[in-house]
């Protein structure tokens, strides 16, 4: 998927070979879903070389999950655009969540997996603390504007992509998303945080209210002027400076 992946395991018994199998899993996801690889199932589906029935179980599952998310977000989560399918806004979180399950099956319970800024945390860090996650300044990649302490949660941030708006408002597909620079969502898993961050970003300034009304989710939205709006319980995670 062309994005950096960081895995940190705090459990003392971890070996490099354990982590290697997780990277192998991400590579297999990339082979199935990458729109940049002509041989991926998604590319072949978009090129008309494969029908939906010919897809592997994983890809079919993603299409079903995307459809469910579309309904849960009143259509604002939509992986179809101009006749092509681009499931990145749900595959990332789903893959990280599956990778976390794999790590747990290997017997590791204290770790985080970060793929492209979407993160699943489990257990505690080496010092026995909750994992500390920063929220990037959408206007300056070198800075963080918030630091949160998370335990057994997922966090995902949706924002504007340089190559043009990757996320679109399905109610106004030709209009670019304006008004917000990033939407960060904290949820029970990174899979949920990812898909709802994607949907909420597409809603523009209303997105934070969508997250506010979703039980079990918190959000931090930054608009184009650098003003952040947070859900009512978000501050319980924040590390105060």
């Amino acid at each position, binding site marked *: 998927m062309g994005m950096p992946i960081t895995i940190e395991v705090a459990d003392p018994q971890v070996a490099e070979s354990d982590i290697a199998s997780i990277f192998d899993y991400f590579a297999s996801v990339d082979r199935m879903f990458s729109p940049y690889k002509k041989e991926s199932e998604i590319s072949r589906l978009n090129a008309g070389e494969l029908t939906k029935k010919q897809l592997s179980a994983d890809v079919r599952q993603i299409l079903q999950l995307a459809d469910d998310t579309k309904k849960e977000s009143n259509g604002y989560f939509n992986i179809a655009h101009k006749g092509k399918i681009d499931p990145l806004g749900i595959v990332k979180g789903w893959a990280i969540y599956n990778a976390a399950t794999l790590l747990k099956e290997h017997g590791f319970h204290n770790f985080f997996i970060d793929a492209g*800024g979407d993160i699943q945390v489990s257990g505690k860090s080496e010092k026995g603390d909750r994992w500390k996650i920063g929220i990037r300044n959408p206007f*300056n990649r070198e800075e963080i504007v918030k630091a949160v302490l998370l335990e057994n949660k997922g966090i995902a941030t949706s924002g504007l992509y340089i190559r043009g708006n990757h996320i679109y408002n399905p109610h106004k597909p030709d209009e670019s998303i304006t008004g917000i620079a*990033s939407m960060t969502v904290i949820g029970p898993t990174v899979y949920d945080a990812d898909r709802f961050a994607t949907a909420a970003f597409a809603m523009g300034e209303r997105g934070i209210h969508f997250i506010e009304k979703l039980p079990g989710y918190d959000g931090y939205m930054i608009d184009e002027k650098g003003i952040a709006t947070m859900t009512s319980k978000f501050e319980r995670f924040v590390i105060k400076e």
Partner: protein
Amino acid sequence: MKKVILSGLVIIGFGAYAIFHHNSETIVFSSKNNTSSSQNSATGSNSAYKDGTYTGSAADAFYGTIQVKAVIQNGKIADVQFLQYPNDQPESQQVSQQAMPILKQEAITAQKAQVDTVSGATQTSQAFKESLAAALAQAR
């Protein structure tokens, strides 16, 4: 005979009164036969419109869209229909029933906290990749 005519007049009168004062919040309907004293509270003036049916653009009412169709007869608004309404979507129905909560806001500031990792949007640049590929193709 007289009684029938009298009650008929009263009914017609009442009907015209009812239409004239019908409360549709912003628009007051004008009766077809009464062109002299109809009001147009939407624009606050009595300027004439061209007869016909006009559909307004869909306006964002936060949790749904509102679109109205106005029917002009004899230069005045004769009917207004709602084509879409916020209650069309179940999500917006919830919102109409409760006031939007006021959520806390702040200006973002750089934090010095040391963190384990950072959540941010990936900034892949397809344009950059394409441009680079084109440049490299020339370099061959």
